[in-house]
């Protein structure tokens, strides 16, 4: 299965990656070769096989409903590219 340039652009948009024209060419090629590699799965009969998400097939543990964390805003904001008044700042969002 190969993919075309438009597919690459669509995927890149979903994944929020800015690609140049050259990048699109390159990824079209490299994504196609990965998809070709994984294509061999399709020949395997998996009817009736349950998908496996977690190797141990454990079940979810539950946490007590208690507040265990304190306010550490300053430490958490320290890595942010841009902040003001305790907020993370991003380019204006228009709704």
């Amino acid at each position, binding site marked *: 299965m190969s*993919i075309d340039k438009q*597919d*690459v652009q669509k*995927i*890149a*948009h*979903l*994944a*929020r*990656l*800015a*690609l140049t024209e050259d*990048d699109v060419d*390159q*990824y079209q090629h*490299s*994504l196609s*070769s*990965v*998809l070709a*590699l*994984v*294509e*061999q*799965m*399709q020949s*395997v009969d*998996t009817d009736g*096989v*349950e*998908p*496996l*998400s*977690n*190797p*141990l097939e*454990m079940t*979810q*543990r539950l*946490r007590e409903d208690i507040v265990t964390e304190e306010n*550490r805003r300053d*430490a*958490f904001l*320290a*890595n*942010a*590219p*841009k902040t003001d008044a305790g907020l*993370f700042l*991003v*380019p*204006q*969002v228009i709704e």
Partner: protein
Amino acid sequence: MFKQSISTLAQQLRNKEVSSVELTRLFLDRIQQIDPQLNSFITVSDELALQQAKAADERIASGNATSLTGIPIAHKDLFCTEGTLTTCGSKMLNNFIPPYESTVTSRIQQAGGVMLGKTNLDEFAMGSSNENSYYGAVKNPWNLDKVPGGSSGGSAAAIAAGLAVAATGTDTGGSIRQPASFCGITGLKPTYGRVSRFGMIAYASSLDQGGPMAKSAEDCAHMMQAMAGFDDKDSTSSDTLNDDYLANLNAPLTGLTIGLPKEYFGDGLDANVAKTITTAVKEFEKLGATIKDISLPNLQLSIPAYYVIAPSEASSNLSRFDGVRFGHRCEDPKDLIDMYTRSRAEGFGTEVQKRIMVGTYALSEGYYDAYYLKAQKIRRLIKEDFVNALKDVDVIMGPVAPTTAFGLGSKTSDPVAMYLEDIYTLSVNLAGIPAMSVPAGFVDGMPVGLQIMGNYFAEAKLLNIAHQYQQQTDWHLQTPTLPEGAQA
């Protein structure tokens, strides 16, 4: 001194033959002197290391030391370390100082381990050669023209070169075992859920597992004593009781049944590597083990299943790197979409972007069933292969990789060819079982690793088997000679 085992060093520290500060200085000096050739460290945390060493000396003096107290250890740079740069090998996290400590590094710290610094890796652990690092490729101490393997290449190279006594690594598809094999050291990928993933920057959550890398199985056992065990901060952490990893190292191997899967010795395996593995297996017969031929029929399918599941999970795990709360943000974004797309395109390397896109595609509408769901079904087939095989045999042995370390740059032009090299390691992660790489000989001066795979939570057994082998052989004691006279 830098070649000693953890047990010996712990004894010497307790006997005051050496202090942790002296030992730490020795390693820091070696890093300064030797690492410029290897590039195995991204960050060397001198000051912190000496502080921790001083505290360790005090703890040893007060008489409540563990075997790791005062031992200089390096951490793969994807474990979050509070206050110390954690890059994950990416430009994206070029300036990321975590506000918290991962469970693994915190447990080693609590045991008294001294952190020398953070080791190089393939970006976000995606790679098998350590060439995908924003901070430059790592070189193999046995031959500077060759790769150390990946993604935990920095940890493997540092141990092989005597720049750290032991190190942490992570293994999603072979990232502990393959570099251990290429660099001639011992590495253990524990059962999925045995070592906490809290604070480990995720690549593929259902496959990732942290583990120890060291010179010997015994040293790995010392590391596991501190690292392993239930963590209530990780929902996928197993609450199965921990074994004592040191207690049974010396148990005899009589009666052990070893399975050799025919699929591990087929086409594509280098003949000399095959010979080395076969010789190693014979050594176990001498120790009282029985050999049995077995089959893991779906082995070949582990490559496609892995290259769907891992990128799919990664595509979602890496969405948090959006330039909002941490990590790289592009200059002067003109709007939101521009900020996202440029920050991510600039911050992630080619291989990472490629895997994000593969995963995005595999999960997208109309393709989910054909890719992701199909891969998960195949994952079950692969798991069942192991479960069935391990009903008849105690452990499974085979090579870690089809060849010894390859040349730097020799496979970068064809990434898919490099994916195929992971054939012997991927299935273990898909099944979630534990496996080790143990030095078993050399081909043309380059180390070869023997892979030992066991049943769920059989880490103590694997360490026992590897330790017994290392009592009979000295492959793990070999050290490379570095150019310019620096002795490794």
